[in-house]
């Protein structure tokens, strides 16, 4: 359990107040726009920034407690920190960078092996090189490896992809997924990118102007209407945890099963049985009162309206229950009135587009 409850004020009016707990496993995203205080929080967890008041504890060990006068020095906290700008030591080779933290960890407590990390991050060919000869993506992979080899009990990642272009991001994301799936290491991941959060995180803490606005499982939090000011109007959506149920090579389609329903998506490159997360944005879900005939939409699911939240402006978010899963449909308030939508009503959800993220790329390797 990672417990954070801190207050901090800076000259110039920036004030941060955050209280959340993160599970001791998986990826917890600190999500919000820039200036929301995400980076300040992980700096406080690392000990780089000292809060004015409050408490920080990891696995029951108190790192900081203003009331009891506890402030464990940075180097004694054993948290791995991956900075946005990599911060590799320019005077050391890649290998010496990687070994820097490892050499300073206790020899008896090195569960994370050098070879494992090098293989995980694909950096074997880089070991003899100097940091200034690496590309941005390579640098970030080495920085991640260096943090891992310091044998941390918690990994902090501060927008590790933010300074990279799209191609480099796409290059690193699979490594982050492998890291998440293979290392038993809790990760606090700072990001302002909805895509990254949905793809990587299990838990999310959403922040706005230094205040925590929501926290909980990603699927649940990201679907909440109060996320609109952070995520943006048209990115609010729902996540469905599914498994690949069958492939239909003739049409290049795959079916994803979730409790109480099935989605048809463009063929995914995963074996049957593999867990995936389907992401359905509210604006991609349309509603009909009767089962529409003769429509091109291939995902047509019976749903029950759970709740309707009217928003400012023309829109309303309709929360739906589809089997055991939940979806959000963003419609206009005018449509709500015209169709007489209300909680408890049976409707048909027409899903125009589904994004599919792999949850565990190593799943189902040949046995």
């Amino acid at each position: 359990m990672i417990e954070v409850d801190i207050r901090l004020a800076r000259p110039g009016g920036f004030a941060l107040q955050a209280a959340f707990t993160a599970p001791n496993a998986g990826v917890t995203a600190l999500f919000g726009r820039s200036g929301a205080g995400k980076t300040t929080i992980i700096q406080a967890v690392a000990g780089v920034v000292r809060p004015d008041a409050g408490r920080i504890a990891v696995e029951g060990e108190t790192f900081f407690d203003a009331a009891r006068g506890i402030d464990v020095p940075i180097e004694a906290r054993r948290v791995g920190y991956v900075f946005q700008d990599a911060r590799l030591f320019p005077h050391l080779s890649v290998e010496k960078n990687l070994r820097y933290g490892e050499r300073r960890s206790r020899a008896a407590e090195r569960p994370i092996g050098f070879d494992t990390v090098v293989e995980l991050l694909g950096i074997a060919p880089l070991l003899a090189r100097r940091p200034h000869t690496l590309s941005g993506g390579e640098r970030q992979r080495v920085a991640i490896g260096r943090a891992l080899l310091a044998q941390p009990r918690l990994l902090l990642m501060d927008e590790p992809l933010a300074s990279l272009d799209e191609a480099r991001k796409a290059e690193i994301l699979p490594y982050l997924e492998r890291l998440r799936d293979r290392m038993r290491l809790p990760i606090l991941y700072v990001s302002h990118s909805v895509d990254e959060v949905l793809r990587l995180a299990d838990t999310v803490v959403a922040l706005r102007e230094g205040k925590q606005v929501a926290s909980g499982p990603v699927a649940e939090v990201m679907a909440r209407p109060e996320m609109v000011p952070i995520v943006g109007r048209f990115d609010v959506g729902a996540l469905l945890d599914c498994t690949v149920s069958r492939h239909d090579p003739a049409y290049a389609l795959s079916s994803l099963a979730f409790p109480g329903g099935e989605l048809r998506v463009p063929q995914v490159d995963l074996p049957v049985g593999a867990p995936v997360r389907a992401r359905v944005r509210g604006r991609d879900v349309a509603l009909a009162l009767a089962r529409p005939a003769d429509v091109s939409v291939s995902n047509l699911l019976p749903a029950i309206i759970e709740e309707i939240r009217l928003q400012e402006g023309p829109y309303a978010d309709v929360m739906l229950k589809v089997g055991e899963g939940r979806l959000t449909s963003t419609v206009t308030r005018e449509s709500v009135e015209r169709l007489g939508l209300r909680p408890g009503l049976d409707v048909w959800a027409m899903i125009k587009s589904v994004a599919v993220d792999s949850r565990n790329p190593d799943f189902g390797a040949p046995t």
Partner: protein
Amino acid sequence: MLTPEEWTAVYLSLKVAFWATFWSLPFAILTAWVLARLDFPGKGLFDGIVYLPLVLPKVVVGYLLLIALGARGFIGQYLDAWFGIKLIFTTAGATVAAAVISFPLTVNAIRLALEAVDRGLEVAARTLGASRLDVFFSVTLPLMLPGILSGALLSIASALGEFGATITFVSNVEGQTRTIPLAIYSATHMPDGDAMALRLTLVSIVLALAALLAANLVDRRIRILIGRV
């Protein structure tokens, strides 16, 4: 080529410049670190005192050294009584004078290099388990090596050229305190001293050029070594 007397002056100059730099460098690094990284009441005054020898007339510095470290000086008498260290008329005294004069130049070069070191790297090193002292030796110091080198070079150059403080503090004793500038000065006061003054002038030029070229070479090596090319 050179007379034995001239060789003595050249050898003495190199010796004084080397030891003055050798002994002042650690203190210069420490002072630069204090000035670049710490904030404390009276820092402005401390800063002023460090740079004072740069702006004071060298003769004044020499005279102050004489008052403080001379045979009856308030520090000098104890140096002699307790440790048997005599500075007046000795090479050790000439070395002290050269070190004091070059100190601000050395500090300044090192301080600039220190301020150019990315503190983010130091924070990164601490998150990797390094203590402050460990960070200084494993990250900060290697990255400021070019600055330390140029500080050392400035120190050697200014020590080789030191005149005013030396002649005031430890006088002009052949084989003890008569470095190249003092020897040139003496030569110009002697009948037929012109040739000697000219030869020592040429030696000065050669030494200065050699030092610059060597520094350039080492600097390039270091920059490649620490990845700052």
